[in-house]
């Protein structure tokens, strides 16, 4: 009964490859996110999806493309992987609403290593 799940947990790949990370939440939340955590532990928001609509798109390269087939899923596809993409990617979800500002529920993270 995992709340937010991500697959795979580890991803090792060569530069130039295309890869995807999948995320699913079973909490019934309206909003899902992708965060990137670099080697210094800094957490930076990449994307936010509310009811399948993109509402935040931080200045990430367009090689990164989020895909949300439904409210419970938010996948991250990365084209032409670069060394600098190596990081831990966290999916998260929250309950949406102007007065709620609920906490984020995070997935376990996907450690991406680009060789």
């Amino acid at each position: 009964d995992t709340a937010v799940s991500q697959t795979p947990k580890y991803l090792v790949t060569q530069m130039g490859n295309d890869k995807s990370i999948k995320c699913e939440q079973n909490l019934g939340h309206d909003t899902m996110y992708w965060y990137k955590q670099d080697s210094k532990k800094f957490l930076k928001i990449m994307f936010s999806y509310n009811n399948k609509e993109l509402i935040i798109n931080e200045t990430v390269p367009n090689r990164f493309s989020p895909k949300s087939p439904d409210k419970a899923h938010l996948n991250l596809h990365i084209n032409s992987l670069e060394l600098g993409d190596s990081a831990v990617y966290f999916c998260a979800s929250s309950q949406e609403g102007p007065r709620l500002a609920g906490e984020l529920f995070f997935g376990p993270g996907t450690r991406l290593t680009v060789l």
Partner: protein
Amino acid sequence: AQKVTQAQTEISVVEKEDVTLDCVYETRDTTYYLFWYKQPPSGELVFLIRRNSFDEQNEISGRYSWNFQKSTSSFNFTITASQVVDSAVYFCALTTAYNNNDMRFGAGTRLTVKP
């Protein structure tokens, strides 16, 4: 713009010492929400607490306590009688009612509790 500053990069204490982790925030919104998250060595991100800008009452939960002071824009976290299991990276975060799907994190404070 919203910003969270955690000036302490690393803190090391000996078990049973008290330790305070500092968090200073910036926002122009009058309604906002502050959070603390814990990231133990295993890597997951665990929600600890949420406070809204209208509630300056301090909170205590077991050995954990939080001191919210709007006058100094601070939301500090104190661990009393620290234990080795408290060793983790702790993140302070901020979101606002205007933009509650955009949670901004501080850089984190790495706490090491030595036996």
